């Protein structure tokens, strides 16, 4: 026999069994088309989103206004009106003929013709709403200047006084200048956690059902204990999900920093990414063991929905509540309380952490409670799995699986 050199007594440690099972999950899943495709789609989505953000950011409402020799003295006033109305405006002096052609070509947004005292706006079709405001203010300023001049005042002085006029503001709460970016970051983190949990959590259930429906589970249980089989599967798929999350985080953070799309300190982004991964791991442990137990209750993939859906709802509901609650009111009482409740924490806490509104003690409490729930779920799910996984045929009732010795 070619395996004559093998004479071991077949010793395989408990951890060794778990490792073998996890390795098979990892090897078959990382090579699977479905993994490569879903990862690629999400990476493309992330890149697309960042590129889009970058594109929108760099082209933010910059308009070019052409001035003729007669109207070029209005440049300062046009720029001041643009600033007052939040329009980013450049001016350029051109001949009237060339200017009209450029407006027709779209190279100029506006051309001011006529004289400095009575200018006329030339546009291709109509003024953008932003520029309408700008020139409305411009016209008012011009009229005001004319009146001040007639009354013997100095229009320039008045303009300056008006530009610097401001009321002092007392803030009851400090404003984070990265508020919007933080919200975006938090939402992205939770979307990724959510998608990864959905994809990989359901993969756990499907994997358990595959072993049951193909009946290979009996062959496996002749070599390892049920808890090893369940642990190996959950760990293996968790690593697959983790690999995916790290790919997303590296692509997202790397590209975001490189393009400056976030316009926010690298520490904030990296922190959000690290916390997203931590909460992904905790959330995965929580839901994967429930889904493994749910999968063990049925013998056919067609029956999977009935047992998997209730668990999926436990992912969907907290995610939806989180998305609707937190960005609108980051520091609200409902969000604070929910983020501490274990089944809600994986979806809500990372968002609050990104927003910088989670107190350290809140993070600590949510971590402790969630990990405690994971421990309890592992024991319960392990029991259900052990009692149900060899019962082929009709769907096993949850109470029976919990009760049976």
């Amino acid at each position, binding site marked *: 026999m070619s395996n004559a*050199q093998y004479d071991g007594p077949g010793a395989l440690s408990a951890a060794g069994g778990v490792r*073998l099972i996890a390795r098979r999950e990892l090897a078959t899943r990382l090579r699977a088309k479905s993994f490569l495709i879903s990862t690629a789609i999400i990476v493309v989505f992330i890149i697309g989103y960042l590129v889009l953000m970058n594109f929108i950011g760099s082209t933010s409402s910059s308009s070019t206004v052409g001035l003729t020799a007669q109207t070029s003295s209005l440049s300062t006033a046009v720029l001041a009106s643009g600033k007052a109305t939040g329009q980013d405006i450049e001016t350029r002096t051109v001949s009237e003929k060339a200017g009209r052609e450029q407006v027709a070509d779209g190279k100029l947004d506006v051309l001011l013709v006529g004289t400095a005292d009575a200018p006329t706006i030339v546009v291709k079709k109509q003024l953008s709403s932003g520029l309408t405001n700008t020139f409305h203010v411009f016209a008012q300023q011009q009229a005001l200047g004319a009146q001040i001049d007639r009354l013997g005042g100095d229009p320039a002085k008045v303009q300056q006084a008006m530009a610097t006029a401001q009321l002092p503001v007392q803030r009851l709460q400090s404003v984070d200048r990265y508020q919007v970016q933080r919200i975006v970051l938090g939402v992205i983190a939770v979307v990724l956690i959510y998608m990864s949990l959905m994809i990989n959590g359901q993969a756990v259930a499907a994997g358990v059902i595959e072993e049951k429906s193909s009946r290979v589970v009996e062959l496996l249980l002749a*070599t390892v204990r049920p808890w090893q089989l369940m642990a190996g599967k959950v760990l293996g798929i968790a690593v697959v999900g983790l690999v995916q999350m790290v790919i997303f985080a590296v692509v997202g953070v790397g590209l975001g920093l490189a393009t400056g799309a976030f316009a926010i300190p690298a520490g904030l982004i990296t922190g959000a990414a690290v916390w997203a991964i931590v909460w992904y791991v905790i959330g995965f442990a929580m839901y994967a063991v429930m889904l493994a137990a749910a999968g063990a209750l049925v013998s056919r993939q067609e029956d999977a929905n009935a047992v998997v859906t209730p668990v999926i709802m436990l992912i969907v509901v907290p995610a939806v509540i989180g998305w609707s609650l937190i960005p609108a009111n980051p520091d609200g009482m409902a969000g604070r309380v929910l983020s501490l409740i274990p089944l809600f924490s994986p979806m809500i806490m990372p968002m609050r952490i990104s927003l910088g509104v989670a107190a350290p003690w809140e993070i600590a409490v949510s971590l402790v409670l969630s990990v405690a729930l994971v421990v309890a779920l592992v024991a319960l799910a392990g029991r259900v799995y052990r009692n149900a996984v060899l019962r082929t045929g009709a769907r096993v009732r949850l109470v029976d699986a919990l009760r049976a010795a």
Partner: protein
Amino acid sequence: MVDARLEIDAVSKRYGDVVALQDMTFDVRAGELFGFVGSNGAGKTTTMRIVLGVLAADSGQVRWDSEPITADTRRRIGYMPEERGLYPKMKVGEQLTYLAELHGMPRAVARAAALQWAEQLGIAGRFGDEVQKLSLGNQQRVQLAAALVHDPRILVLDEPFSGLDPVAVDVMSEVLRRKAEQGIPVVFSSHQLDLVERLCDRVGIVRSGQMVACGPVDELRDTGTARLSVLAPDAPAGWADGLPGVTVVEARRGRTTLSLATGADDQAVLAAALATGPVHEFARQRPSLTELFRNVVSAPTAEEAAS
């Protein structure tokens, strides 16, 4: 090692109110092919699952080499479950290697053993194919390879012959015989009694969770009522009436079939037959395993008899 026996000692198992096994007791000796027969639901699969540790017994013990069986001993059992099962989307070679590793083989050894058994069972050409792409016959071969790949010290096979074509039956028989010759106890269940009779050293007949007959096939056949077939063309009807312990089962065209109670004298039958004229044939017939099986499973159980 050579004397190591697999002992199933007074194993009982209930599923709720249903008694699946009651004091199931038998042993399989090293180098022995043991046939495990019984009606569906008699408890064969439950017994095998308990031996493998897939199920836990309520009471009783499974021993190997006089020691209670442990997880490490169980890894040295080659098992073929009644419900065949392999990962449909895993490649043949990877699957066999993986199963060998789960039985405690180092990876390189496992791979070599997988290849060796694939060659031996004629599926080496499909080593890189997914199991689901193989014909049913070839899937059965992979299943057998999965039971053998880790060089088991004990073989427990649940219905290994079911669904096999005649060629595959021969391959399977040959492999089992060869394994037994290496000193490995082999126990398998089957409904193909002629095959069991031909192949096995000993058989056990199970009924309602209990072993009702167990021993070498020859011995078991001797324990049943013996039959005589006598061809005496000139014998008148009723020639054998009155012989002590002899009952006529059938008389047709000069051939009389008689059943002998224990202790009845067959020589007295022969003398009586010769007294009627020429005797062309006088043969003692032992019941086949199939007949034995029918008798055993159709006899009322103790409880039924009591009621």
